[in-house]
């Protein structure tokens, strides 16, 4: 074989921030290193002096960031999927009898799969509310609420369409009607200001590794009514060790075993980074990047953008004449532009927007630049134009 010389690899342009933000702020990496440099401070367990109580510090930071309390009602988990599983299965177990649950077409599989599992087990009847344009509204939700509706789970922001949902009127209605409301904030936490004092949710789920700039493996939820959720995990808490039943005190009630200390430290530092940089500043930059990228894409023939006015820095699109996996592969390997292709774990959204074939998603973070947007759009232009002139042996 006679290879042609390969060009040097272009600089990496990372546009998969809706999955995991990268890079992380220096402050976050430093805090993780600090956390691991000393013995862990584990309240209730034998511990040394001079270490930081990261779980308590992070809970307080979360409470201030989301305007919610008491801070002991912030529970740490591995990620949003873990939180949702704990809440959904815990709610069903607590309820005992079969009941009616509602979710939406906008959801991620982290919601759809636990609910489908419960439905198949006969524990719930499930209604899935369709979205109109890019959102689900209270009127659509009301249409499926029935006498035994006990639970509604809904995303705060679509990971495909980048549309933030107006959850306040929904939360108020559900609260007034004694229906437990779980909000999946995986895509919104960190991106937009969230005031949980103002929105009466049953539980609000977040993950650390996306817009909160933490490392993978840390997430959590805030819960207003812990008694609505059965304890499904038991183990060591460093408290009441003489009893063989799991303690009811918060936050131990939902946390068993050794915490992910480096993850919690990263979350703590991520929130401090957002606060010190200014959430408005971050949001404005993300909006500018997203708008400029969309403008660039709109100039390219053969591109379909699924939401031209996203609220979040998420742009989902399709290139005519080329499979989205192929396009993603080319962008990654030939141009060093990292996107995410396929169904984005949200099969029902894709069923509606592209017949279930999936698309390409570019998602931005504070650390992206306008130059990167331009270079990525240029790469997409080359792929689109090339797809138009393909040579096939068929």
């Amino acid at each position, binding site marked *: *074989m006679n290879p*042609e010389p390969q060009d040097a690899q272009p600089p990496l342009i990372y546009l998969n921030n809706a999955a995991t933000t990268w890079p992380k702020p220096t402050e976050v990496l430093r805090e993780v290193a600090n956390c691991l440099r000393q013995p862990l401070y584990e309240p209730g367990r034998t511990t040394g002096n001079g270490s930081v109580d990261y779980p308590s510090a992070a809970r307080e930071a979360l409470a201030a960031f989301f305007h919610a309390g008491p801070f002991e009602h912030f529970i740490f988990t591995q990620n949003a999927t873990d939180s949702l599983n704990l809440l959904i299965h815990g709610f069903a177990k607590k309820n005992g009898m079969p009941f009616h649950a509602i979710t939406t077409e906008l959801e991620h599989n982290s919601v759809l799969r636990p609910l489908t599992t419960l439905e198949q087990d006969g524990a719930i009847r499930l209604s899935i509310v369709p979205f109109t344009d890019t959102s689900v509204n209270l009127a659509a939700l009301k249409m499926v609420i029935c006498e035994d509706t006990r639970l509604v789970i809904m995303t705060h922001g679509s990971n495909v369409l980048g549309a933030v949902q107006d959850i306040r009127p929904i939360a108020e209605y559900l609260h007034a009607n004694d229906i437990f409301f779980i909000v999946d904030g995986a895509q919104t936490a960190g991106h937009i200001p969230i005031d949980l004092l103002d929105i009466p949710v049953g539980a609000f789920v977040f993950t650390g590794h996306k817009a909160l700039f933490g490392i993978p493996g840390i997430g959590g939820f805030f819960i207003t009514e812990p008694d609505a959720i059965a304890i499904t995990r038991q183990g060591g808490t460093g408290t009441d060790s003489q009893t063989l039943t799991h303690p009811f005190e918060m936050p131990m009630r939902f946390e068993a075993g050794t915490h992910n200390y480096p993850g919690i430290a990263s979350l703590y530092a991520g929130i401090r980074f957002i606060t010190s940089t200014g959430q408005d500043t971050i949001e404005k930059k993300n909006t500018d990047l997203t708008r400029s990228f969309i403008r660039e894409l709109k100039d390219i023939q053969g591109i379909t953008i699924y939401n031209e006015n996203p609220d979040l820095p998420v742009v989902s699109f399709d290139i005519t004449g080329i499979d989205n996996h192929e396009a993603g592969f080319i962008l990654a390997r*030939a141009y060093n532009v990292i996107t995410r292709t396929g169904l984005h774990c949200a099969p029902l959204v894709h069923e509606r927007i592209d017949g279930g074939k999936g698309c390409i998603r570019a998602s931005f973070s504070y650390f992206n630049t306008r130059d990167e947007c331009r270079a990525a759009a240029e790469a997409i232009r080359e792929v689109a134009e*090339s797809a138009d002139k393909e040579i*096939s042996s068929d």
Partner: protein
Amino acid sequence: MKEYVLDEPLTIGFLKFLELFGTVRFLEQLRKPYFSFEKELFISIKGFVGDCNVEVRYKKEFQDLMADYFHLLLYYYDQGERGVSTLKEYEDSIREKMKIRLDPLPGNGT
């Protein structure tokens, strides 16, 4: 899905060889010339001319039958004309095994 690193970079000559066995798609105007090879039920390959890395996918249900197919493509490419006919014969025997697996009726060799 498997990613292979080849001893030598892929060439246009290899794509022409692949065309004898399935559908080759070639996008040559990209920063790196991209190709994909698709042989229904058998295998799909994608990569770039001039690169040593290729991504190979096969159907889960025929994974055992296909495990060697990619290596055979590389091996018989080096054999020239003779390699083409030998590989086609090999493909026929794979197809027979697939047929039996897809339709395991009594008397159909199972």
